[in-house]
């Protein structure tokens, strides 16, 4: 038995090493002088510099995409959670005609390929003058954020014991007050999980941002680093520095909330 667990530990260590290596390589390279990036790569770097990061915030204006990404992902999360939580409560706890149809519709939208609604969204946003603006990104983002939050929160609300609401109803509280004063506070962990996942997806989104943000002033972080250009060659040092900066917030979230993320990912997918 111990012989086997020892072998599994080795397998795990190998896989974890393979998983972490590209990240290590990217981080080390982002601190390596441009001239050394493509000459005889070494596992342990000989010299580390900060130039690429400095260039990111001086010669390039990397604060702008960071600000854009924070605002867009933040607003998307706030809107999706506030409207989605109320909707999910009704879907999880109330009986009404059309309920399962609504659930099926939400699930269907979650499976929409983004690229199939790019053309009308582009035409609509152009017509109402929202191309290149924050709402012009937040609205399209809600197409994936809203179904995601509704779906996860319906699952969460269903797990809460019914007795809580019955007790509140006996105390004379209406359904809305029950939702506000009993259900929502108790659901804080579920809402936190849904917010984390929504924020991650919005922060990472690329296709909509690429299609609807036309100029560098409105680029989000993924678009900005994907479109980095140098004068003569690909500025790999700065690209990798940008990649590390783009990954920072995400890595932080994963470190803090890994347990919650795993719970959220598996809740919707695997029936207990």
């Amino acid at each position, binding site marked *: 038995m111990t012989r086997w667990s020892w072998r599994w530990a080795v397998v795990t260590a190998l896989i974890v090493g393979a998983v972490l290596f590209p990240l290590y390589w*990217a981080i080390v390279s982002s601190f390596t002088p441009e001239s050394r990036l493509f000459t005889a790569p070494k596992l342990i770097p000989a010299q580390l510099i900060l130039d690429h990061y400095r260039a990111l915030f001086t010669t390039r204006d990397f604060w702008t995409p960071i600000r854009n990404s924070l605002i867009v992902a933040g607003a998307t999360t706030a809107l999706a959670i506030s409207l989605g939580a109320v*909707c999910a409560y009704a879907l999880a706890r109330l009986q009404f005609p059309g309920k399962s149809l609504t659930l099926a519709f939400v699930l269907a939208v979650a499976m929409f390929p983004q*690229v*199939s609604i790019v053309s009308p969204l582009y035409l609509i946003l152009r017509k109402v003058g929202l191309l290149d603006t924050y709402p012009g990104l937040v609205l399209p983002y809600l197409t994936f954020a809203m179904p995601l939050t509704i779906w996860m929160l319906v699952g969460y609300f269903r797990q809460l014991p019914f007795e809580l609401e019955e007790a509140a109803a006996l105390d004379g509280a209406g359904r809305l007050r029950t939702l506000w004063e009993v259900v929502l506070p108790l659901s804080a962990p579920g809402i936190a999980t849904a917010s984390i996942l929504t924020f991650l997806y919005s922060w990472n989104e690329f296709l909509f941002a690429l*299609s609807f943000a036309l100029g560098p002033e409105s680029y989000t972080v993924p678009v900005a680093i994907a479109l980095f250009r140098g004068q003569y060659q690909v500025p790999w040092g700065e690209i*990798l520095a940008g990649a590390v900066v783009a990954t920072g917030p995400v890595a932080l979230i994963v470190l803090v909330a890994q347990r919650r993320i795993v719970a959220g*990912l598996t809740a919707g*997918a695997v029936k207990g």
Partner: protein
Amino acid sequence: MSSPRMSSAAQAARGNETRLAWMLVSPALSIVAAIALLPILWTFWESLHFHDLRMPWLGRPFVGAANYIEIFQSQRFWSALAHTGFFLATTLVLELSAGLLLALSIDRVTRGRGLVRTAVLLPWAIPTVVVALVWRFMFESPGGLAPTLFDRAGLTPITWFADPVAAWAPLILADAWKTTPFVAILLLAGLQNIDSSLYQAAEVDGAGPWRQFREITLPLLRPALLVAALFRSLDAFRVFDLVYVMTGGGPGTATEPLALYTFATLLQNLDFGAGSALSIIVFAVAFLVALLGIRLFGRSAFLERSP
């Protein structure tokens, strides 16, 4: 509700509940309808027209199925479809088997599981654009990590991104690297649902580890495997970010999947008629895949998750 005559008080309460429910549901629902349902109908309508934004003077005449006919006759469409299918099949096989291995080993690790889980979650959580750039950097020739390793091993270094066949390797590897953890996490949850007394009983009966795996683990893991396969198929089918950033569909259009072809038709050629027809095709296929998947493992896992 089973009694034919409901008391009027109960009826009024039900009416109230319905009204309240729709009041709570409608804000979110109307937004989703406005930004997802309406656009997809619009895309369909648009796909029946000729609409080239570069030639506004030609207007937007109704052309019926002409866009679809044109697409089905184009070589580039069939190649893009084949590329998408190839990418889907290879990544699915790779990710499910590697994910299963990873899940099995995490399941057996007794110490430091939190650490392992964090490490494994990172590739899943970081932006696909970043993944594409990092792997592109590692395979960039000459002087990148992979070409150098090939060179040192005495093999002919490959110029990965200039070769229509070799360019698939970094794409598939990067995708597997990014999403195997997700598969593993789904499968791990499935593994932890398996009753451990089954293994003890098998042990007593003298079944070895391989037989236990084949006759207990695999069958009981089937639902989780199917869910993972469905999610991965849908994602692989609409793959865009990774290819756009890593190869741009190149060299030429050798690695161009459907989503990228659609995007190029829409926003680079500004041919909204044909682009919309492509969008509808992508949508229809994705929908079929989803329906098929839901049929395969029953709607229960999705629609009836009630307690």
